């Protein structure tokens, strides 16, 4: 990990950006407390919190027992009194063991009692590494159907840093989906001294301008979409790529503006297709901009199956630039 130099803009990997966002937030605000399995000492399964228990002490960097529900419950209770817990799920998939605390206790607390719950849960998620059915899932859609939660899924390093800082300041429960595949592969410039918004709020971010179709994506898939856009350009098709670093709450203005401009919309995500967030996005577009559409809205997603273990079996399921390109061509040819 780079040493802690907070001056100016530095190039960081996605995982280092998360490491620094946590560290900087801990330095900026004493009420921030980290909880998770193996995060003290060892530094967590991905070593993101390495060194923190030495720097901040074991009172603020707390190993938990293997108890996702207990941990989220305790964090929620602590948040009611102004502690700002940031929980690391060892893998995103394990949230199913803390599901009730997340969707019924933390998410509904403000609506029920008007008492804020400043809580962040970090989710190292996603596939691409042959990690099998329980270490590869993309499960954000469950939480996008839960009023009261905010959901973040950065594709880029600067977003990973800034949005995690914002998430920690936000007085609401924020689920922060980090993509494991990007951890060491994705790099970018981060200005750690720039102020960040104190609230999480979502809108589409145009990552590539285009005129023929709009492709929406988030997380790892934004990068595959950008690759596909590059390939499409070579074919003479101009794709506008919109990244959604925040999935909830999500303003639609930028998305609709783009779709109105290009007249075609595609959604790409790694989560399984049925009931995924692509349906929601498609529906919102179909509702608000159907008049502008020159082709059906298409979704390029994981098929409806659990993640298989073998990399070859997994690879055919994860959306790739080829599928995106082929789908875009069908849309243009429609």
């Amino acid at each position, binding site marked *: 990990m780079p040493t802690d130099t907070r001056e100016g803009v530095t190039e960081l990997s996605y995982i280092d950006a998360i490491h620094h966002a946590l560290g900087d937030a801990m330095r900026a605000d004493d009420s921030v*407390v980290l909880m998770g399995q193996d995060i003290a000492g060892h530094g967590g399964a991905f070593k993101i919190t390495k060194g923190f228990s030495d720097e901040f002490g074991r*009172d603020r960097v*707390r190993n*938990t*027992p293997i*108890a996702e*529900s*207990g*941990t*989220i*419950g*305790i*964090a*929620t*209770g*602590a*948040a*009611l*009194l*102004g*502690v700002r817990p940031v929980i690391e799920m060892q893998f995103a998939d394990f949230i199913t063991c803390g599901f*009730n*605390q997340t969707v*019924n*206790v933390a998410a*509904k*607390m*403000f*609506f*029920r*009692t*008007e*008492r*804020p*719950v400043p809580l962040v849960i970090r989710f190292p998620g996603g596939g691409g590494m042959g990690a099998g059915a329980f270490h590869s899932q993309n499960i954000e859609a469950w939480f996008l159907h839960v*009023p*009261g939660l*905010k959901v973040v899924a950065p594709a880029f390093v600067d977003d990973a840093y800034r949005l995690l800082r914002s998430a920690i300041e936000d*007085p*609401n429960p924020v689920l922060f989906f980090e993509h494991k595949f990007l951890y060491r592969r994705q790099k970018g410039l981060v200005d750690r001294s720039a102020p960040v918004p104190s*609230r999480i709020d979502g809108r589409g971010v145009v990552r590539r301008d285009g005129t023929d179709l709009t492709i929406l994506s988030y997380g790892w898939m934004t990068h595959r979409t950008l690759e596909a856009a590059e390939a499409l350009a070579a074919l003479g098709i101009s794709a506008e790529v919109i990244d959604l670093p925040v999935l909830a*709450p999500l303003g639609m203005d930028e998305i609709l503006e783009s779709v109105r401009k290009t007249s075609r919309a595609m959604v790409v995500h790694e989560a399984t297709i049925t009931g995924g967030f692509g349906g929601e996005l498609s529906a919102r577009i179909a509702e608000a901009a159907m008049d502008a559409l020159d082709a059906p809205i298409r979704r390029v997603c994981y098929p409806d199956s659990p993640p298989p273990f073998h990399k070859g079996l997994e690879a055919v399921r994860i959306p790739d630039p080829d599928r995106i390109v082929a789908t875009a061509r069908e849309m243009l040819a429609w």
Partner: protein
Amino acid sequence: MTASQEPLRAPGAALTEGSSRGRSGTKTSKSSRPGGRSDGLGLDRAARLELHLFLRLAREWDLRFEKMFKTGALTKWYSSVGNEATTVAAATVLEKGDALLSLHRDSGAILRHYLDPDQLFPGLLPEGSRRPALAIDAREILHRLACQMLGRREGFSNGYERSYHYGHIDEAAGLFHMGMISHLGSMIPVAAGVAFALKHQGTDRIAINFIGEGATSTGDFHEGLNMAAVWKLPFILIIENNQWAFSTPASEQYACASLAERGAAYGMPGVQVDGNDPEAVLGVMRTAAARARAGGGPTLVEAMLGRHRGHSEGDDSLAQVPEQELAETRANDPLDLYEVKLLQDGACDASHLQDVAKRCHDLWIEVVDRAAETEEPDATEERAIYAD
């Protein structure tokens, strides 16, 4: 009998025997009540009459709403009748800045923690070692509480949450009260988390939480208590073991000799107490609270109670309780027992008890009638799902 490593025997606490564990249809704890040996607790008349006042206050509260249920003015009611000795006594150890996390049968704890009896009934109680009251306007908070029960706009949740599912936090007064969500067990880790914050923030404040014996079967009971023990949190969980969960007897809920034994499974004291004896409960709670404040960590308290009412009013779940058990339960009504004891001990005379009962009864008529006249929630108002 306690199964804990460090048996908690508060002076004079009337601990029931683990071997006589109350089970449906079998001998319950009540039949083995060793009687209220309160001497060692050192309670003076004032403290005892205050305890009694809140038992009565809570009882009359419930009776008022039960009546409303019967007349159709309410559509659902979960009764706290029979739990008052435990809940009132437990909340008696709470101080300013402590946290109360209550369940569905804890009106006694709520009233005890919120109210200053001198505000409500000036001169009714003698001077003496009474529990210091929080600086809260008693009438005002009771009005909101009653509105909350009726789902009115002026209730704590403005009609958005049902009865005991609200939270009320008044930092200035040092009041932290968070009610339940329906999912049983869920609030145990949350309560432990409140205790964590209190400790983490450097105070010696504690959090207490209640749970029925049925909800001890939930995963959150286990995860919450285990973490509370490992992190030595200033937390007390009180099991209100009324032997029944809806229609399910304790024998179909757990197979251990007593739930207090689970303390040992987490490395915390576990103590079983006669939950019909407020002074016994108070003794146990004092020890547990002192331990928590001193950094000694959590305690599990199992208060043995009887099932006086159905699961909720109007369901027929009481039909599952054998008649003999029900008769015994009624013969061991905690309020009756305590009144007899106070009379026997010469702590008060019958006219005091009548006076208290009448005042409480009248208070609730007044408070609830006033609440019933307030506005329904305004459905056109916005209610945010996010804090901003």
